[in-house]
């Protein structure tokens, strides 16, 4: 698979890519990511000009539009410090998807370099910084939804490792964990019927596992599942992985 191999992390300075979903809807997730990174001693920069990773247009097949946005990201995140993203999907866009659409472009090298320093949050903490357990306390039965775009990366295992290490957390497995929740970005609106059917199956598995909280590293999945559960009149409590880490820190205080 075409993937930028990540450069090992040396310093503690990072750049946060908040993602457009957090910028528009889920501000608290980005805030939690900041607090979690600062807890680890990171100096978190937030390049103000940031927008989106380019994935919506990439998946829709409009690669010229997507490349425009990726080039903007290359300029915005020009610093050589690692870029940390509280989303497996957006991170994978930069270290995998962007390479596909830049294969024949003259600036492929810059895009590859961007990919090499881009990390999903959990992957960064465990495989970038070498942190293997999380302090504090969070009393809850937690079900981790392994989002699809982290297949083949270290993200899901990293999230499970950290969550499982928190005092008070009991992790439960979701049935058919390899099945997609049906979000898929524009897929969710171009294939609303199939997307909803997939979401219902996932929610059935979630409810069968009876967690206190459904956790994911991707807000796309949670927006879709949470929005659907709310519509069904049976909301499911869901949190981003970063929010759980931060709540654990607060639980320790």
């Amino acid at each position: 698979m075409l993937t930028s191999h990540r450069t090992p992390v040396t310093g503690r300075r990072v750049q946060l890519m908040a993602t457009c979903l957090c910028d528009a809807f889920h501000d608290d997730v980005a805030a939690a990511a900041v607090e979690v990174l600062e807890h680890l001693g990171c100096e978190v920069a937030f390049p103000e000009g940031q927008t989106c990773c380019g994935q919506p247009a990439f998946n829709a097949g409009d690669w010229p539009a997507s490349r425009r946005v990726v080039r903007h990201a290359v300029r915005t995140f020009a610093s050589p410090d690692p870029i940390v993203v509280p989303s497996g999907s957006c991170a994978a866009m930069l270290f995998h998807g962007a390479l596909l659409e830049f294969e024949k472009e003259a600036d492929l090298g810059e895009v590859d370099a961007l990919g090499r320093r881009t990390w999903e949050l959990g992957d960064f903490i465990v495989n970038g910084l070498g942190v293997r357990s999380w302090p504090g306390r969070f009393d809850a039965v937690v079900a981790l939804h392994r989002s699809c775009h982290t297949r083949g990366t270290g993200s899901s295992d990293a999230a499970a490792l950290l969550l499982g290490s928190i005092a008070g957390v009991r992790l439960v497995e979701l049935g058919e964990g390899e099945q997609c929740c049906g979000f898929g970005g524009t897929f969710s609106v171009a294939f609303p019927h199939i997307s909803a059917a997939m979401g219902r199956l996932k929610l059935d598995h979630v409810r069968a596992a009876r967690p206190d909280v459904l956790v994911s590293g991707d807000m796309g999945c949670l927006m879709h599942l949470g929005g659907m559960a709310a519509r069904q009149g049976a909301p499911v409590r869901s949190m981003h992985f970063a929010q759980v880490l931060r709540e654990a820190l607060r639980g320790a205080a």
Partner: protein
Amino acid sequence: MRTQRIDQAAARLGAETRAAVYDGAKIGHEKRTKLLFDHYADPNRLRELAGEIKQHVVENLDTYLPAVEARLVANGVKVHWASTAEAACEAVHAILRARGATKLVKAKTMVSEEIELEGYLRERGIESLETDLGEFIVQLDHDRPSHIIKPIIHKNRRQIAELFERNGLGAYNDEPQVITQRARQFLRHKYLGADAGLTGANFMVAESGRLVVVTNEGNSRFCLAATRCHIALVGIEKILPRDRDLALFLNLLARSGTAQQLSVYNEFILGPRAPGQPDGPEEMHVVFVDNGRTNVLASSCREILRCIRCGACLNVCPVYRQAGGHAYRSVYPGPVGAVLSPLLLGRRFPEKADLPKASSLCGACNEVCPVNIPIPDLLLRLRDRAHTERVPSPGTPPMGAWSILASQPAAWKVALFGGRFLDHFPRSLVPVPALRAWESSRDLPKWRGGEFRRWLKLRRKRPGAGQSSPGITP
């Protein structure tokens, strides 16, 4: 609400059919996973190795094809080349005509479906009979296969029992053994009256010219044992370099396709009956079929030619499970079909350019594929091609304006702020189709554009302040 054709097909699919497809696919996937991971510490390494071997073949087809032809000729096999479906049908017809044959028994071959051989021969007075149980049922019902391994995955026992009853194959009985028994009895007589047997090939070994046919019913053996002439339809990508590669590939094919350690019948056919051999066809023909495969080779998606037609990607695919195989309007459905079917059309690609859209890009297909085809990447490349060729894509929001916003920070900030007006607007008046589609089954969270940036500024100004709120979404 304008949506994609496959989504509409899924919405129309009857509950009974969907249940049959869903259950069949899910069981197939779960059995496969258990078998692979119970027996091998690292099955992924096997998939990667098999993928590398097959990619090597695809990259070197120009040398392998003449080599295999020479081998086959030396083995006494007659070789034919067909660049189109029509030419392949003609080649088969010419072989049959030369022998005065009017009755053909067929083992399962997807290529024959692809070239629509049955209809072609029927029009020319030749009966061809499917002998694979699933394909036999499809033929009896004038239906189409909806899965490449389990052609009748969309039918349940009751429907099959009723079909048999209607066709005079005995009173209603939906016991699988009885159904199988009845089909067998009917077919046995047909084998004996047939003039020629047609098979596909799961593999064609270059170094030996060995043709490998894998079945679980033994029907292809009957096709060969009972007739004088064997015709094999072989896609040009079916080649393996060496006999010893079969160990890996037969193993992966059986495990991935039907969750068996080994398929029940593995036939290795080296040529027509040799002097002194007690039986077997006296004449053997191999028809190599291109039918668009060189288009695929010339495309940016040639990896799909590694495919060994195991069906694992169909079984795991959440979209296939909801929509069923017929929704893909192609011989090859599911993830493999979403790549292969539009490409095989060559210049007529736009007719099926919607198939690569039918994926959430979840990557489950790549994870199970025994030859490790990066199917999601190929789907994306085809989406790029469809966009470049300006094929309309219903339901997909246009991205041009968005990309301009997303590459101009000042405009982006205005949009982040402006989005909040959405919350004060009756949603039914918002003229954004994507929003309607979203809200057909999901609530949208409250717009909080720019809130994070404000929080961060505050925190930077007064360190320690600006603790975020307890984070529970939505």
